[in-house]
């Protein structure tokens, strides 16, 4: 009888642990099962990343469709190269898709926003996005503003 009680409570304990793990996975971290594996990689060249890091989101119309996997400096072009993996369910990105580095909110994280173009051909694994727009760097903006003011005055 005693052994039965112990077995039942230990079983319940283990089940609680598994339930907690499942809750963590789906309710807290928002894990979904189908996005694993099915991705393809595209690249883009930016003049200035302005704080974009690996694992940043890639989104289109505000919906996350991929992640930044690699960020490095191209020593030939002296410009930053971003590799990102896009979900296979979004395989219909046109060749003239444009990429811009945007900020979530005023002080939020940096992410890449994609805007689709009008061509018939689609981006394949390893393709480059040609039309890119660098991050907005506040200091440069203020500097330019002051410079213009000084020229006017």
């Amino acid at each position, binding site marked *: 009888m005693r*052994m039965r009680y*112990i*077995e039942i*409570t*230990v079983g*319940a*304990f*283990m089940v*609680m*642990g598994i339930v*907690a*793990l499942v*809750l*963590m*996975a789906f*309710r*807290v*971290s*928002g*894990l979904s099962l189908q996005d694993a594996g099915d991705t393809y990689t595209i690249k883009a060249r930016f003049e200035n990343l302005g704080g974009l890091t690996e*694992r940043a989101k890639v989104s289109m119309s505000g919906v996350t469709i991929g992640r930044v996997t690699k960020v490095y400096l191209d020593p030939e072009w002296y410009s930053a190269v971003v590799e990102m993996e896009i979900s296979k369910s979004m395989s219909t990105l046109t060749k003239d898709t444009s990429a811009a580095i945007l900020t979530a909110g005023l002080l939020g994280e940096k992410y890449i926003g994609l805007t689709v173009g009008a061509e018939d051909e689609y981006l394949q694994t390893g393709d480059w996005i040609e039309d890119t727009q660098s991050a907005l760097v506040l200091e440069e903006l203020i500097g330019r503003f002051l410079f213009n003011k000084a020229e006017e005055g």
Partner: protein
Amino acid sequence: MLGKLLDQLQAVGRSGTAAIEAIGRGTLLLKNSLFWGGPGSAGFYDLLKQIYSVGVRSLIIIVVAGFFVGMVLGLQGYNILIDFGSEAALGTMVSLTLLRELGPVVTALLFAGRAGSALTAEIGLMKATEQLSAMEMMGVDPFKRVITPRLWAGIISMPILALLFSTVGIWGGAFVAVDMLGIDDGAYWGNMQASVEFYEDVVKGIIKSVAFGVVVTWIAVYQGYDSVPTSEGIGKATTQTVVISSLAVLGLDFVLTAVMLGGV
């Protein structure tokens, strides 16, 4: 003058060699008791019994503590974040704090106090009443019989308890934030899901708690096995278990965080 200096030097040297010897004995104990098998080895039911006494009976303190820690995090975080008008990030703050740090660490500290001390006292008393020697006389390996199931029970229970702590804490935070302070339900959970990563945050928290489980139970069984077999010695060993394993958990936490988050 010189003699006194040499005496002090000798005292330093003695404590140094004693510490190294203790580490050596502890490692030998771990090596002897980590794996199952051998004469008179403990069975599956012994493990179950130990999980019951180490894990299940720690459940109430862990769940209650987790709920209150989560509620306090919700309240404190709200008061800080409201100044920046970003109280929508409260869910993110509560869940990341719990998953990455407080869940594993506070659980390990409570676990050391609740289960670790009990393990030490139990094994110490077994040694004092010569039950361990009696086992050896009968040809039963006391490591495999007594230590192995307790060690594994701790290693198995700790991550489950830490997960439950974090889960209850996040719901406690939600209770304060959504039901009492009136933060939008969707903002709390939505921002949390957007920024919590399963591998980066949940799995790494579990890795931490497994490491803490190993360290705390190891120190507890070692202190019990190595205690001076008197009532005073057992009392001292029990205190040592709580002190050493708490410090070890906090120190190891920094090392693990530095390794997993990078940047050091």
